[in-house]
């Protein structure tokens, strides 16, 4: 797949093996600023590995990943961490909120990691929690809120640094359909309003329906799908 012009994040010919298992076998990917791209595929197809490679969490065995014209392979661990802190946001299936921090502290955490003073970070965090309709949970701990509420807190956390790309790995996988839809609405609305690109890993067609484009990963290979409306 040739990368279209103006792409923010481009990956080509990615290969990644875990022992004898080939997780990625020549996968390719691209995304424009503000675009929402769904990465679909059955369990074990390699879609999460693709997301981890794109986000600089996992280094592929071969192939190239370019973010905003910069090759990820040329960056060291500290530079990739810096990139993730400032340019990327993340939402995982189970939220992965820090259980001992309150919800507002969880949302403020990426800002604090970037050196923003606590009060300012929490003010910004509260603003995002308001947009995600969870500002009333600010003082509660993750253990005290429902799954859907926790996932909305996680979405707020992924957006709080105004990242250019949000990586969402099965963000509704642990939620019922109603809650899942609400989370997706809020995520895509907030992302589009901020021109944030979203890489959305899912195996559910109704979740993928929130995307602008779909890529299917199967046996470690990716394929662009034509959207049938």
């Amino acid at each position, binding site marked *: 797949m040739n990368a279209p012009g103006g792409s923010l994040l481009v990956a080509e010919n990615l290969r990644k093996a875990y022992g004898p298992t080939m997780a990625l076998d020549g996968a390719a990917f691209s995304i424009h600023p503000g675009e929402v791209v769904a990465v679909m595929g059955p*369990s*074990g197809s390699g879609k*999460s*590995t693709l997301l*981890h490679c794109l*986000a600089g*969490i*996992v280094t592929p065995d071969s192939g190239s990943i370019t973010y905003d014209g910069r090759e990820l392979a040329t960056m060291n661990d*500290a530079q990739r*961490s*810096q*990139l*993730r*802190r*400032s340019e*990327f*946001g*993340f939402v*995982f*299936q*189970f939220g*992965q909120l*820090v*259980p*001992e*921090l*309150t919800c507002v*502290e969880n949302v403020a*955490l*990426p800002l*604090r*990691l970037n050196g923003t003073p*606590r009060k300012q970070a929490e003010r910004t965090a509260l603003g995002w929690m308001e947009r995600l309709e969870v500002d009333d949970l600010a003082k509660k*701990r993750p*253990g*005290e809120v429902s799954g859907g509420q926790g996932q909305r807190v996680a979405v707020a*956390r*992924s957006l709080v640094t105004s990242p250019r790309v949000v990586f969402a*790995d099965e963000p509704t996988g642990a939620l019922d359909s109603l809650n899942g839809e609400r989370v997706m609405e809020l995520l895509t609305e907030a992302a589009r309003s901020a021109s944030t690109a979203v890489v959305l890993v899912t195996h559910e067609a109704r979740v993928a329906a929130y995307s602008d484009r779909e890529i299917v990963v199967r046996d470690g290979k990716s394929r662009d799908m034509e959207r049938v409306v």
Partner: protein
Amino acid sequence: MSLRQSSRDLGLGVRFAFAGGREGWMRAVLTALGVGLGVALLLLSTALPNAISVRHDREQARLDWSFTEEPPTAADNTVVIANTDTTFRGKDVRGRLVEPEGPRAPLPPGLSAYPAKGEMLVSPALKRLLASDGAKLLRERIPYRITGTIGESGLIGSQELAYYAGGEGLFAHEAGSNVSRLTAFGNPNPTPEAPDPVLALLNIVVIVMLLMPVAVFVAAAVRFGGERRDRRLAALRLVGADGRMTRRIAAGEAMAGALLGLVLGAGFFLVGRQVAGSVEVMGISVWPSYLNPSPLLAALVAVAVPAAAVLVTLFALRSVVIEPLGVVRSAKPTRRRLWWRLVLPVAGLAMLYPMLGQGRSNGSFNEYLVTGGVMLLLIGITALLPWLVERCVARLGSGGVAWQLAVRRLQLSSGTAARMVNGIAVAVAGAIALQMLFAGVDGQYTKSTAQDLSRAQMQVTVPADAPMAATVEKFTDTKGVRKVTAVWESYLGDASWNSENGPQLAAELTVGDCAALREVAKLPSCKDGDRFVLDGSEYSVDGPKMNVPGKMLYIESPTSGPASAPEKEATWTVPAGITQVRSIEDPTGSRRGGFLMTPAALPKDFEGMVRGELYLSIDQSVPDAFEYARNTAAAVNPLADPTAWTASTTSDKFESLRTGLLVGAICVLLLIGASLLVAQLEQLRERRKLLSSLVAFGTRRRTLGLSVLWQTAIPITLGLLLAMAVGLTLGAILLKMTDTPVGIDWSSVLSMTGAGAAVVLVVTLLSLPPLMRLMRPDGLRTE
């Protein structure tokens, strides 16, 4: 509830303990390892009394003193034995010269036959030492040919250095305290020693304080993997298990870990027993066979450990509600109450209070009250610490991200953090209290020797038959000897020493050149041929009374005594004009009395009848200077007795108790360190996914590492502060009980606290590499 149902639930728990693939096994093995280490230490403690008693019995069985007032006469069932103990580079070597006087001469334990003259039987450890490269000086000192080894029954430890060498003509030196004629070895009528109440108290407190942290450790070990177990129990609730069933299943799971731990512990103990046979700590070693646990105490350990595991698990589950849809720990845990936590230490104080001021002269301390009181005070720490940690962390404000992550975690689960440092806190509190007690009563067991180390650092007693001038010359020529002050001594009496009643007046005779005599008396002038009589001695006051011109005085010969036939009766008639001089403190710190003679003034008949006391000034910058001096002593005469001087001596029992404490404290700290590490790793493993996701969104590894450090440092600081408070209180009470003034040696308090803190620091450092591994993105993978 039927018994069958209960056992089925327990059995299910046992199965769960080992289910769950590699991770399940790992968890079970970690628990078992923890329990096993604790069990091994408990078994060692139960075996120690036996080891001490066997060592004592063997020591008694080989005693080679004459227990009768009159030594037996030579016969075919007697042996003459001479003590030739020596020291080699700080290690004691038990040496004996033996001379059987007939075919029925008794054999000491461990020997099947006596060595011939010039030959020796040695302990295995001495054989190894003599064969080593660095033992040239010792080989020169003990030059006999090795013809065999001493059996285990003749040694008190596997690493003891000992030898029996064949001698000749030993009885000629019988008057010296180092030579005895025996018809049997050992004390035929051993009288039990009255126990010293303070030493007995120290004994009890040492044992309790060493075992308490082990108990705390075992309690912590059975809770490894607790969170995962709770989630499993929730799944069981979903399929119909009720609350009681889940508790029984949890109990079964804990029991399985504890039982496996018992097996491992027994294994560790057996291996440790063998290892113990090849090590020596502070001069004490044992044979593996000494370490036999008392069957009753071993059985108690076998029952108590699994029972404790079950009780601890059930106690831990009391605040957890396991619902079918998950584990509910109250998000805002109920605040810990102080009152019942205070009851424990207060009850401990109440048990110790009646014994305050008792001292050592009012009989033994009530061991039950002491044990109970000390235990309650120390358990009080484990009860108070969670409350203290909870209260303190609740007040901590926000700081950097690492600090915030740590503080919030502690606020949410302060109990886990407190449990982790409980063991260290108990051990440090115990060590502080014991250190105070040891320091306080030290003066009662450590005596100043009065030896003047600025004048000499070694004393050599030389038998009477050594030639005076040649002996002094040999020592003067010895490498590392700066100065030799030689005096020759015997006793003078106003009647024959062989007469029925012995002399009525007796005084010392000291012979030496003017320089040597000036070390013992203030001489107005002195030249060879002069004689003096001493005044000013505290104990020997007969000298001036015996200084009557024309009076005949008898010298005590090396073989004097009613039982021995007088070989020669040497006398001296007191001449007129002997100057009376004032005695001064000699290098040993005593003021002597009697007569002083320069060598030319010594009657010819007295030569060979005076034994030498040589005070050596040693150049300690010369390596092995003391060893060279000891070798010269052995070359002069194998029965010469060199002694390195010290400023003080300490009671053997006190010293061995202190050694025991040191060894025990090291074992306990290592054990607690291991437990901390396992608990830390387990917590990190539980948070693997969270750690990976934090790294995924850019958290620096340094931030997470620091947060782990704070999570340990905050509770340990609080734990050590509490330990100091309890330790100082307990120490003060124990000192009051022994009627000793209360004093605090802050340097040792701080060193104990520092040791505790160091263990935590080392554990944190050791847990950093696994932490780094757990932060890898692999943790995010779900397939």
